[in-house]
C-alpha cells in the first residue's frame, strides 16, 4: 500500500515535470510578465485601466506611438505612414495609413484570413467610442475636439441607438488609405491621445460577430494575436505572422549603446515569439515567482525592497544570479492641495498665500522620502515631473526647502503667531499609509504651531468631498496621461475647477490667460517658456505643497534584453528579446 503510494507520487511528479518541460519548450522565446491587478477585459472601448490597456497595446494598433528609447519620449508614426500633414491653422490632420497592415486571422473574416487595415476602420472604431451603447469612458479624448463628434454622440443618445452610417463632419476617409481629422479648435495633444487605448483600431466585422463578447475575442493589427485567457490567471499572446514591417529603433539616449539597448537596432519586430501575462494580485507569490525565474522582470514590491536593494544597489545574491536593477523616475507627482475657496488657507495673494507658503516651507521632503518611499523618490520643485517637455531640472522652489525658521517668518507675515496659528483640516483616503501620512503632516505643521486635524474617508467619500469643494486640505497624486506638461498644468486652470480636475480651485487670471495661449501651441521652446511662467505663478501662490516624483525600481533577469521603462509607453513587448540559451543556464542557478 505504502509502496504503491510512493510510486504514484513519483509518477505524478514525473508527469508534472515533463509537462513543465514541454511547456517551457512550447513557450520558448516568449516574454513572461506579471500583472499586479486583474484584467477587466480586452475591448479598447470597454476597459481603459492601465493593466487592461497594457495587454491591449500588444494586440491592437494605433495611428501613432511613442519612441521606445528616446527621452523625453516623442510621438512617432505607428500604423500611420509618416507623421500627419497638419494644416497651418492646426485644425486639420491628414494621416496616410500604412499599406499592407493586416488584421489577425479570425473566423469573423469571410475566409478566416485577416484583411487589410483601412481608413474606414479608424472611423468605425472612433464612432464606437461615442456610441452610448458601449458606455465608454474613453470618449473624453475626442469630446468637443473633433468637429461635430459631440453632436453625433448626443444625437445617438437621444435616438437611443447610434447610426454608424451617419457621417461625423470631422472624420473623413479621403481614400482607402487616407484619414482626415478636422478639429473644432487647435488640439496639440491629439497626437498623444491617438496612442492611447481608446484610439485603438478594431475590425467592424469582428465586433459585429462577437458583440459584447469581443472583449474575450480581441482581434487587432498589433504584433501579437490573442491566444487564450484564463480569467484572473493568465493571458497568452502569440506572434502575429502577418505583422507589418517594423524595425527596432536605431536612435536612443547616449547611454543606451553602453547598456546594450541598441544591440538589436534595425531588426524586424517583434523580437520574440509571444507574451504570457500572469495576473498575480498578492505581492509575495509574485515576488517569489520572479525569484524562481518565472517572470522576466518585475517591479520590486515595497516590503521586499530592503531584501533586494541596499544603499541603492542590488545585493550580491541577486547580482550573482544575473539579475540587474533598473531605476527610472516616474512621470507623476504627489501633492498636498489647498482649497483656494477656503477663507483660511485659500485666496490669491495676502494672508492665505503666506500661510500656504509657510506650511510648504515646514514640509520636510527629504524625511518623507526616507520614511515613506524607502528613498525611492525625488523632491518635486514644481508641478511638472521630469521626462516631460517644460520640466526644468535646475528649478529650485524657495518654499520647498525645509526651513522652520523661515516658515515661522512666513507665518508671521500671514498675521499669525505660533500661539494664534489656525487649525487646519486635512482629508485623506482610508488606509494605513495614508493614516501615517496624516500623522506625519500633523507633526510637520505642528513645528510652526499649526494644529492639523486629519480625517480618513472611503475613496468615493474622499473624492466627493473635494469635488464638492468641501475639503480644506487634502493629499493626492497625479500620473501623466501623455508626455506633455499641459496634462499637469490643466490642474490649475480656472475653468477646470471642481468638479473638474482642478480640485484646488486655483483661478488666477494671468495663469488662465497663459494656459489658453499655450493650449493651442505646438510643442517647442516658445511653449516651454510660457509653461515656465505658469510654473512661476503656481510656485508663488502655492496652491499645492509639491511632494515627490516617485522612482520605479525594476529587476530584470540576465536573459532578458532591451528592457527600458517609461510609464507612458505601453506597447513595449515587441522590443523585448529572450536569450533562451542564457535562460536555460541562469534558471538552474535560481
Amino acid at each position, binding site marked *: 500500500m505504502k509502496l504503491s503510494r510512493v510510486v504514484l507520487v513519483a509518477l505524478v511528479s514525473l508527469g508534472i515535470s515533463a509537462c513543465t518541460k514541454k511547456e517551457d519548450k512550447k513557450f520558448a522565446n516568449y516574454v513572461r510578465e506579471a500583472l499586479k491587478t486583474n484584467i477587466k477585459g480586452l475591448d479598447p472601448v470597454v476597459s481603459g485601466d492601465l493593466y487592461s490597456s497594457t495587454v491591449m497595446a500588444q494586440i491592437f494598433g494605433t495611428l501613432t506611438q511613442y519612441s521606445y528609447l528616446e527621452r523625453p519620449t516623442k510621438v512617432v508614426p505607428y500604423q500611420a505612414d509618416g507623421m500627419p500633414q497638419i494644416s497651418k491653422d492646426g485644425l486639420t490632420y491628414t494621416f496616410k495609413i500604412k499599406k499592407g497592415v493586416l488584421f489577425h486571422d479570425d473566423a469573423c473574416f469571410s475566409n478566416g484570413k485577416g484583411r487589410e487595415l483601412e481608413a474606414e476602420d479608424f472611423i468605425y472604431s472612433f464612432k464606437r467610442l461615442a456610441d452610448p451603447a458601449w458606455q465608454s469612458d474613453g470618449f473624453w479624448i475626442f469630446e468637443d475636439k473633433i468637429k461635430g463628434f459631440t453632436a453625433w454622440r448626443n444625437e445617438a443618445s437621444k435616438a437611443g441607438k447610434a447610426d454608424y452610417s451617419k457621417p461625423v463632419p470631422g472624420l473623413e476617409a479621403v481614400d482607402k488609405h487616407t484619414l482626415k481629422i478636422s478639429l473644432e479648435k487647435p488640439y496639440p495633444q491629439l497626437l498623444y491621445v491617438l496612442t492611447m487605448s481608446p484610439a485603438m483600431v478594431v475590425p467592424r466585422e469582428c465586433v459585429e460577430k462577437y458583440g459584447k463578447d469581443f472583449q474575450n475575442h480581441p482581434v487587432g493589427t498589433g504584433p501579437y494575436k490573442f491566444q487564450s485567457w484564463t480569467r484572473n490567471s493568465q493571458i497568452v499572446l502569440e506572434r502575429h505572422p502577418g505583422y507589418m514591417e517594423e524595425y527596432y529603433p536605431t536612435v536612443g539616449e547616449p547611454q543606451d549603446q553602453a547598456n546594450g539597448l541598441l544591440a538589436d537596432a534595425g531588426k524586424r519586430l517583434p523580437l520574440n515569439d509571444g507574451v504570457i501575462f500572469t495576473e498575480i494580485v498578492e505581492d509575495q507569490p509574485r515576488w517569489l515567482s520572479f525569484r524562481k525565474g518565472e517572470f522576466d522582470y518585475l517591479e520590486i514590491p515595497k516590503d521586499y525592497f530592503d531584501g533586494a536593494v541596499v544603499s541603492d544597489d542590488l545585493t550580491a545574491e541577486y547580482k550573482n544570479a544575473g539579475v540587474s536593477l533598473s531605476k527610472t523616475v516616474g512621470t507623476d507627482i504627489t501633492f498636498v492641495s489647498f482649497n483656494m475657496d477656503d477663507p483660511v488657507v485659500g485666496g490669491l495673494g495676502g494672508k492665505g498665500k503666506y500661510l500656504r507658503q509657510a506650511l510648504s516651507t515646514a514640509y520636510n521632503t527629504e524625511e518623507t522620502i526616507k520614511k515613506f518611499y524607502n528613498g525611492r523618490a525625488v523632491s518635486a520643485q514644481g508641478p511638472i515631473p521630469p521626462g516631460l517637455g517644460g520640466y526644468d531640472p535646475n528649478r529650485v522652489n524657495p518654499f520647498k526647502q525645509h526651513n522652520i525658521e523661515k516658515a515661522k517668518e512666513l507665518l508671521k507675515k500671514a498675521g499669525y503667531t505660533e500661539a494664534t496659528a489656525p487649525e487646519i483640516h486635512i482629508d485623506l483616503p482610508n488606509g494605513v499609509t495614508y493614516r501615517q501620512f496624516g500623522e506625519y503632516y500633523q507633526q510637520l505643521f505642528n513645528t510652526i504651531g499649526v494644529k492639523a486635524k*486629519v480625517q480618513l474617508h472611503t475613496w468615493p467619500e474622499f473624492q466627493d468631498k473635494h469635488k464638492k469643494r468641501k475639503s480644506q486640505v487634502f493629499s493626492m497624486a497625479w500620473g501623466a496621461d501623455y508626455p506633455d506638461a499641459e496634462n499637469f498644468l490643466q490642474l490649475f486652470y480656472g475653468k477646470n475647477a471642481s468638479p473638474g480636475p482642478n480640485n484646488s480651485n486655483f483661478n488666477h487670471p494671468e495663469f488662465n490667460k497663459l494656459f489658453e495661449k499655450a493650449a493651442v501651441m505646438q510643442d517647442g521652446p516658445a511653449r516651454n517658456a510660457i509653461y515656465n511662467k505658469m510654473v512661476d505663478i503656481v510656485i508663488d501662490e502655492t496652491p499645492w505643497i509639491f511632494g515627490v516624483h516617485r522612482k520605479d525600481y525594476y529587476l530584470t533577469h540576465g536573459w532578458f534584453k532591451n528592457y527600458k521603462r517609461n510609464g507612458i509607453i505601453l506597447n513595449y513587448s515587441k522590443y523585448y528579446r529572450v536569450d533562451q540559451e542564457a535562460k536555460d543556464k541562469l534558471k538552474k542557478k535560481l
Partner: protein
Amino acid sequence: MTVATATMNQISTQTQMPKSLWADAISRIKRDKLALTCGAIIIFYALLALLASLGLIAADYAQTNPQGFSPPSPDHWFGTDMFGRDVFMRTVHGTRIALSIGLVTSLIAIPIGVCLGAIAGYFGGKVDDLIVWFYTTVDSIPDLLKIIALSYVMGRGILSVYVAIGFTTWVGLCRLIRAEFMKHKSREYVLAANALGASHTRRMFVHILPNVFHIILINFSLRFIIGIKTEVILSYLGLGVEPGQPSWGIMIDDAKQELAQGVWWQLAAATGAMFFIVLSFNIFADALRDALDPKLRNK
C-alpha cells in the same frame, strides 16, 4: 467521631453568622489568589490610564525623533516607531483609550440594557413583545456591520467609537435582565411590596434591581473586553480613533507593514498589553460570577 464534631462545628458557625450575598462573594474572591492577582493587574492598568491622562507619566508620547525604528533599548524599553516615537509611552497611552472605551461604552449600554430588560421582564405581554421584537431586530444585524455603518455616519473619532460600541452591545445584558425580572416579579418579597402599595417603579428599581445587580456587575467586567477588542478591530480597519492618537489598534495596524522589515516591537507591545488586560478581565469576571451567582458556581 472527630469528623462528626467538625461537621457540627461548621454547621453551627454557619448558622451563627449568616453571610449576605456580597459578603460571601468578597470572602470568596479574597480566597481566590488568581482572581486577586488579576484584580491587581486591572487596578494597575487603570492607574496607568489615570496617570497618563493627567499627564503625569509618558507625557512626551508624541515626541518624534528623525531616527525611526530603533529596537528596544534602555532608553526606549519597547523601541520606537517609524516617527521615532517611544512605543512604551504609546502603549501606556493606548491603555487610556482602551479603558475609557470600556468605561464609557458601559455607561451607555448598561442603562439601556437594564431599563429595557427590566420593563420587558416586569410588565410582560405586549410591552415585552415589543421590546423583544426590537432587540431581536437590532441583534440580527452583525455588531461589526452596525458599528461600521454608525462610524461612517458620524465620522471618525473617539466619540463615534464610544457611541457606536455603546449603542450596539446592550442586547445580551437586556436578555439576562429580562429573564431575571420575569423570575423575580412573582417572588414573595415583591408581592409583599405590592401589598404595601409600592408603585411599579419602586418595585422594579428599589426591590428587584438590587437582587439582580450582581448580573450587571459581571456583565460590566465582561464588557470591557468587548470594548477593548472592538476598538482594536475598528482602528485596524481605519475606523477607530483619530490619526495622531495612540491606540493599540493603530499600533497593530502600523505593525502589519513593519513586520516585513523586521520591526516586531510595536506589534509585541500592543498585543502584549492587550493580552494581559483581556486575560485579567476574563479571569476576574469569571471569579466574580462564581462568587456572586451561586447557581453558576463551578467550584
